[in-house]
């Protein structure tokens, strides 16, 4: 490479470097992205073509999507999912912001450790006793029960990420508010909350995605009455549940919204995911 740089004209070298970088990155990205392309393309495929994997070109049709809406409970489950993940996210980020603030500014080491501990607890260990408790107090198969269970995901995650964002806010801003006569709660509302809004939005989106994708909690605690989107997608894993086209249509429907979110805010997402991971 260095040799080429020496002897080739500058523009040609630039061009070669550009082509090489594009080829390299495509070699990495394309196999990873192919799965999504395949998912979408096969959702437009008539079922009999599944038995001819060599056929890549065909007349696309949308009937798989209408079949999914008609024959499966995906739509009502997406509605359940929106309610459950929505409430779990809101409670999660409110608790997360408040606790993260005290951890970041008052150095609550023990509390931080407890949060980390709850974050490590595997769902399967928590879900057996939760199921028993829900059975006794009648929360089994209810929205409220699943929302509460999803807080296991959103609260620790929210705290964990928000600590990083709040530590990035200079302490002096708050101190100057105190000097100007603001109480601690006022300083929190007027300084910390507005300044941490971008971080809060990124955290909320990540919490929502993780809660939206979670399968096990709703599978066990929701029973047949309240199931979420992943549970209804999971029903298609049974080969008798509908053809490959419907399978891919259902998978596409739950994946596409997340895609657009990622494309819109990929930078904040990346920082949100790593800031919590690295600053432990």
């Amino acid at each position, binding site marked *: 490479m260095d040799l080429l740089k020496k002897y080739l004209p500058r523009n040609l070298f630039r061009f070669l470097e*550009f082509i090489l*970088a*594009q080829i390299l*990155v495509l070699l*990495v*990205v394309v196999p*990873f*992205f192919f799965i*999504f392309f*395949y*998912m979408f393309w096969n959702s437009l495929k008539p079922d009999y073509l*599944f038995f001819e*994997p*060599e056929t890549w070109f065909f007349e696309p049709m949308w009937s798989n999507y209408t079949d999914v809406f008609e024959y499966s409970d995906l739509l009502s489950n997406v509605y359940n999912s929106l309610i459950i993940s929505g409430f779990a996210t809101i*409670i999660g980020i*409110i608790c997360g912001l*408040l*606790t993260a*603030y*005290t951890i970041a500014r008052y150095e609550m080491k023990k*509390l931080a450790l407890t*949060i980390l501990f709850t974050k*490590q*607890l*595997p*769902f*399967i*260990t*928590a879900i*057996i*006793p*939760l*199921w*028993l408790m829900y059975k006794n107090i009648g929360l089994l198969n209810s929205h409220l029960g699943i929302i509460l269970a999803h*807080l296991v995901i959103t609260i620790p995650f929210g705290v964990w990420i928000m600590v990083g964002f709040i530590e990035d806010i200079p302490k002096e801003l708050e101190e100057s508010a105190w000097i100007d006569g603001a*109480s601690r*709660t006022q300083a929190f509302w007027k300084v910390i909350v507005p300044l941490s809004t971008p971080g809060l939005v990124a955290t909320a989106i990540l919490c929502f995605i993780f809660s939206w*994708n979670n*399968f*096990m909690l709703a599978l*066990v605690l929701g029973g047949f009455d309240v199931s979420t*989107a*992943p549970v209804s*997608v*999971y029903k298609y*894993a049974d080969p008798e549940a509908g053809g*490959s086209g419907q399978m891919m249509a*259902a*998978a*596409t429907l739950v*994946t596409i919204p*997340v*895609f657009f979110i*990622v494309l819109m805010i*990929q*930078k904040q997402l*990346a920082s949100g995911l*790593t800031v919590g*991971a*690295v600053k432990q």
Partner: protein
Amino acid sequence: MKELIGRNITLFFNLPTVFFLFSIVGLPVFVVIATSFTDWQLINKPDADFVWLENYIKPWQDERWVNAIGHTFYYSIATVLGQLLIGLLTALLFNRNFAGKAFYRSIWMMPMISMSVAISLVWLLFFDPPYGVLNFWITSIGLEPLEWTIDPVSAMPSLILVGIWHHTPFMTLILLSGLQSLPKEPFEAARIDGAKRWQMFLYITLPLMRGHIIIALVLRSVFAVKEFDTIIAITDAGPNWVTETMNLNIYFNAFEYQYLGEASAKGVIFFFMLIIIQVFLLHFRKREWTY
């Protein structure tokens, strides 16, 4: 009132978090430990008796549980090492500047945040032995088709492939943030001393990245050990339980066979195992290496 909150800010601000976490994590932990000492079965034996540590001893005579531990380690070590390798290469790639980097990076992040159950369906079609795309490609270059998830030998590697595909982007992100936080001086000094690229990578980049690599390993191995969705959707612990991990074993024990006491004990064992794995891995982070 406001003054009261202001004076005890750490107390009032943490009330909601503590309340929720106590009721959905704290209480359940007590309940799970309590049930783990009983021989409670939901239908066959609804009146539980106290059996001391029997549930902590019995599983070790059960071949399926012991095998499940082996499968868990096989799955996690293989996926995490695969993720580390590809993650490191892609992090190095994304650390350079090239046209369309932001776009490629956002596409790269997609597997990580897509719904694992939905993704499993796509892989299920991929692995389909007679009509799947993978076998179509394999046979078209003249090789023997594989049985993928149906053959006990290749079932776990198939899941490992899915695991690597699913979670490598997260590895890339953490390692990338590590690469971007590296100091410039050692590299300049090395360049002046005439070091080659691969030497700089081996002797400067990797040692400086140790903290990030270990954090990434800890996070990813914990997730890999806990993997549930893709395994239950793609192989359902089959064929012949060769892809049953601890997580699935506990799930079947509790919610299919309804041995609540035994499953609780296994859940507690599982939790302690996770803690031990993390402490073990984090131990490497603190150790000082001299050069």
